[in-house]
């Protein structure tokens, strides 16, 4: 036993490794990573183990903070121009997803994102950012448009999940989420997704099948809501904090598990404390990731993207 380094030491080593990894990640090169590194280095002193239950829960709180910037808040700050494209070309326009053409750092890009509402009326109009099949159809047709015109795709993910209603089921919610993933998997253009708040389950992954996947520092990405998980496994939704600590939806764990490529730093205290600064950091991250994803030809990119997702998982045998 004496030969084993204690838990603290192991964690410090892991953190140093993580920092080394961050320094090596090319797409963080342009991001103002130094501030982030300084903070991470400070964290070495503090962190004894995995992010604690409290730290994970802090991310959950910030990811759902009512003042957190949403997709259109970032579009307004990051893009020189934006024309929204609406409608699913079948029968409606789902406002839980916004899509359009944007001028982003000298490029024309197609931008797609979940959109939550700020006040009660807008929240209802946008179904709290929970898309119907029509929302995914809109995303798909804008992706296809982007592919034809060789515009890269930026996708901003921020949803509690796909809308869980009767009409959504009647219109084939599961099928459209599946088809949206397949559409995105097959695009020839470079694609980048970033989870900017809640990456809630299938409703999130539907538009996150990208060449590069990023997460903001305080975003969460998870298979189920902490409350949902608690209700099923603990049979008590109030055990959400325990559930979150167990399934680890925070950005650091997602990076460690290889689910995301990089973490986009947020201003001290979270994105809502300084939306302009948060948008600057996000734009830097997206820009670097897009340039990175733009290397290589269509077939290589498609094959690499498919392989990226094909390899997800941990198993033996």
């Amino acid at each position, binding site marked *: 036993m004496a030969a084993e380094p204690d838990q603290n030491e192991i964690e410090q080593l892991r953190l140093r490794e993580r920092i080394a990894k961050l320094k090596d990640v090319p797409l963080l090169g342009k991001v103002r990573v130094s501030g982030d590194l300084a903070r991470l280095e400070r964290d070495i002193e503090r962190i004894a183990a995995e992010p604690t239950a409290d730290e994970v829960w802090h991310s959950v709180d910030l990811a759902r903070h009512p003042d957190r910037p949403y997709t259109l808040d970032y579009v307004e700050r990051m893009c020189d121009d934006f024309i929204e494209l609406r409608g699913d070309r079948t029968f409606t326009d789902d406002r839980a997803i916004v899509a359009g053409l944007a001028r982003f750092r000298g490029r024309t890009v197609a931008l797609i994102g979940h959109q939550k509402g700020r006040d009660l009326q807008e929240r209802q109009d946008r179904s709290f950012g929970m898309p119907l099949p029509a929302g995914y159809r809109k995303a798909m047709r804008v992706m296809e448009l982007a592919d034809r015109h060789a515009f890269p795709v930026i996708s901003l993910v921020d949803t509690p999940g*796909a809308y*869980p*209603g*009767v009409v*959504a*089921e*009647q*219109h*084939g*919610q*599961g*099928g459209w*989420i*599946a*088809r949206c*993933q*397949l559409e995105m*998997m*097959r695009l020839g253009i470079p694609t980048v997704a970033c989870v900017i708040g809640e990456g809630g*389950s*299938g409703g999130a*992954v*539907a538009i*996150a*099948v990208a060449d590069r996947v990023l997460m903001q520092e305080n975003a969460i*990405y*998870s*298979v*189920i809501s902490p409350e*949902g*998980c608690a209700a*099923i*496994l*603990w049979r008590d939704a109030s055990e959400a904090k325990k*559930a979150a600590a*167990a*399934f*680890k*939806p925070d950005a650091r*764990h*997602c990076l460690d*598990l290889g*689910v995301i490529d990089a973490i986009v730093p947020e201003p001290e205290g979270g994105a809502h404390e300084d939306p302009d600064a948060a948008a600057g950091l996000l734009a830097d991250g997206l820009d670097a990731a897009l340039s990175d994803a733009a290397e290589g030809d269509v077939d290589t990119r498609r094959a690499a993207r*498919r*392989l990226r*997702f*094909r*390899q*997800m*998982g*941990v*198993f*033996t*045998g």
Partner: protein
Amino acid sequence: MADRLDVSIEDRREPPPEDGKKHPNTCPRCGSHYRDDELDANLRVCKQCDYHYPVRARDRIAQIADGGTFVESDADLRSADPLQFFDLKPYSERIAQAEMATGLGDAVVAGAASIERRACELAVMDFAFMGGSMGSAVGEKLARAAERAAERQVPLVAVTASGGARMQEGILSLMQMPKTVAAVDILREARSPFVVVMTHPTTAGVLASFASLGDVTVAEPGALIAFTGPRVVQQTTREKLPDDFGQAEANARFGHLDAIIRRPDLRPYLGRLLSFFVDGRNGR
């Protein structure tokens, strides 16, 4: 309370079992009861009311594959426990218990088979293993089955039964959705046919990934096919649910299925269907 008269009529019958569960061989719809051999002889379908009982993966393979043709692959593949997940008990213990209880390594059994003399890859899910939930092992076995089908230029037939992603594997279980979608993309690129048979229940992460991407998609009668199950829809939206919410029959009415196939008809249907793909490829 004490001065209230008790007017209930005394019930002298046996009280129902404590947990309210009937015997597994008792039909939950009409109450008919069968011996094991009777039920098996009728492919586990109620002779009185046509209720389709759940079928275990190996029994399903015996029902639809030609005798002796199934050769299992990846039988030793197991999910790891990357999160060291612990709810009321450790995930590793839950897997071990499920393996003991079902005799399966995880919630899908996959391998090569023939159906009515047409070679295919067959992947059959088993709801008895942790609700048929999809974690890394299920995703990997499905992806490998798709790759074998692409490689061998044969169809992939998937029989689904799943409550969705396996929460205990956290975000990696969510990633099995795009992973199996990638596998379907590999199948499509190789122009190998993909047939999906949805059985009760096919929901959430499985429905919202490979299960919805079949070239041909059929379901068993009465199967629940929904991204969000009725209880959660009811609790979240307080909507009044239609009586047939999420049922295969409703899905067929809304255009999400090619057909509803009764279990006794499934094997001949698959045989005919595969023959179109295998025997008649002269368009290109």
